[in-house]
């Protein structure tokens, strides 16, 4: 029982990380039809930025962690905005080229991170509380899981509120459904493109800082390793659906944890099988709009 609880909570924590990456992917694809393979780089850069902050501050304070998260989010957002304005926008409506340019950017930035921070992982430490555990239903749960879950829930609620209560949010929701009609109402939908890239980049940057706390290190490959699962989550949840991404993040991560423990490390395989099953039964994903 206690093992199961630990696996479930760890799965939900990992799901929180997946969600932070997948939310941006899903919004960007839903609105613009762009599969952003550079999204992992936003995460990695956010993680390094957070690490740079924490090593300059007195290591291990809460203030340092909060500041890392803020800086990680800001760096993620700025790089995402630059990507959209300088690369994606120039290839408006040319989806193959857009995919190619994001793949190229992902490869190039990993090499850049190698050059700046070295190919070896840099180790990250946070507040001591995160390394402690608490008993939950007989299981000893490391506190970092709670941080991941708490921040991801806050990000989810923040994005939902943004989409529901702001004019940009209204434009984004309408654009996900029918982009050309949004322009036919006199709205420059490209503004919304930049905004979703900023939101996605900020969420990925936060995800990077949290991932570095969870794994205990940052490496140039950090983003790419999470991006694969985030893409799977996005497809399972339904491209363009934020809620679908949230649900699929939890399902994928929990399943992965359970399979890794109970089925001798087959977590990744099970996730791919789940993806195949969803694609066969519901090709548009759990909450996808169109078939």
């Amino acid at each position, binding site marked *: 029982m206690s093992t199961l609880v630990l696996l479930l909570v760890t799965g939900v924590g990992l799901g929180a990380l997946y969600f932070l990456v997948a939310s941006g992917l899903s919004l960007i694809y839903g609105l613009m039809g762009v599969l952003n393979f550079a999204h992992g780089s936003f995460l990695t850069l956010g993680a390094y930025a957070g690490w740079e902050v924490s090593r300059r501050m007195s290591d291990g304070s809460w203030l340092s962690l909060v500041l890392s998260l803020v800086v990680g989010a800001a760096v993620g957002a700025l790089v995402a905005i630059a990507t959209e304005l300088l690369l994606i926008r120039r290839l408006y409506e040319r989806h193959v080229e857009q995919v190619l340019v994001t793949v190229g950017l992902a490869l190039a930035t990993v090499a850049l991170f190698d050059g700046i921070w070295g190919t070896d992982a840099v180790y990250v430490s946070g507040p001591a509380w995160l390394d402690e555990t608490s008993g939950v239903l007989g299981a000893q749960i490391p506190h970092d899981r709670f941080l991941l879950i708490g921040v991801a829930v806050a990000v989810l609620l923040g994005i939902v509120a943004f989409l529901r209560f702001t*004019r940009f949010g*209204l*434009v984004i*929701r*309408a654009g996900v*459904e*029918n982009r*050309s*009609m*949004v*322009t*036919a*109402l*006199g*709205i*420059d*939908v490209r503004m919304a493109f930049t905004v979703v890239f900023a939101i996605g980049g900020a969420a990925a940057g936060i995800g990077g800082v949290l991932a570095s706390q969870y794994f205990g290190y940052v490496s140039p490959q950090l983003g790419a390793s999470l991006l694969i699962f985030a893409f799977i989550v996005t497809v399972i949840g339904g491209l363009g659906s934020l809620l679908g991404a949230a649900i699929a993040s939890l399902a994928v991560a929990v399943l992965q944890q359970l399979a890794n423990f109970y089925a001798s490390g087959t977590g990744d395989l099970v996730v791919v099988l789940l993806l195949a099953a969803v694609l066969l039964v519901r090709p548009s994903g759990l909450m996808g709009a169109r078939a």
Partner: protein
Amino acid sequence: MSTRPVLVVRGLTARIAGQQVLEDVSLEVPARGVTALLGRNGVGKTSTLKALMGLIERSGTIELDGEPVDRLATHKVVQRGVGYVPEDREVFGSLTVAENLRLAERSGGRGGRHGVSPERRELVGDLFPDIIDRSSQRAGTLSGGQQQMVALARALLNENRLLLVDEPTKGLSPRLVGEVTDALEKAAQVVPVLLVEQNLTVARRLAGDAVVLDGGRVVHAGPAADLLDDESRVVALLGVGGEPGQSQSQHQSQHQSQDQSQDQSQHQSQQHDTAEATS
């Protein structure tokens, strides 16, 4: 001012996915009343409106109140004062009626935050009390007729120089055809309308002028009454009719039968319509 046409189109060509859909469209829309854009299925009526909006690749000259708009992106064309009511309504189904309308509100000049005047709100409220009552309902759950009202309301909220309205009565029951026609008649008192309409009864009631397309070209232009009262020309140009009233009843019954299956097969019919528009 009043004699100058609001829209002058010269040599408009357009393509969809590399295929030429408009060969050479030249037309003028007077600054008042309804101008009907008529023709058989697939002659380029919807494509003409889409090309004017910049929604499909086009070339040629388009002047709105004497200013060229043929090189502008769609949203800029709209901001110059063109309201668009597309063929399949294209309301945002996951948004509420109120959100659909809010999205359509354009910020006007430097004056207010929104360009929507109290008079316009009142006009929309008077014309479409039904949908105002359903403000908080998701537009996707409305009937076809109500969705059409939302689509018209979106265009009427703003001060436009011209409305482009594409088959507003398609798929509606005779009662709703009447309501939509009434609304268009009132709308046309405040803004000129270029109207694509298959229902010749509606066209006859609303239109002052008519332009007929065939094969992506204009084949006739003139007063609507002259054309629609001349049965032989109606048959020759529009390929309908034969006996008095037949064209109307044919269309009516077609619309009616579509309406009955409307709710179940809305998506299906939209796909069909899209295919028709691009063919």
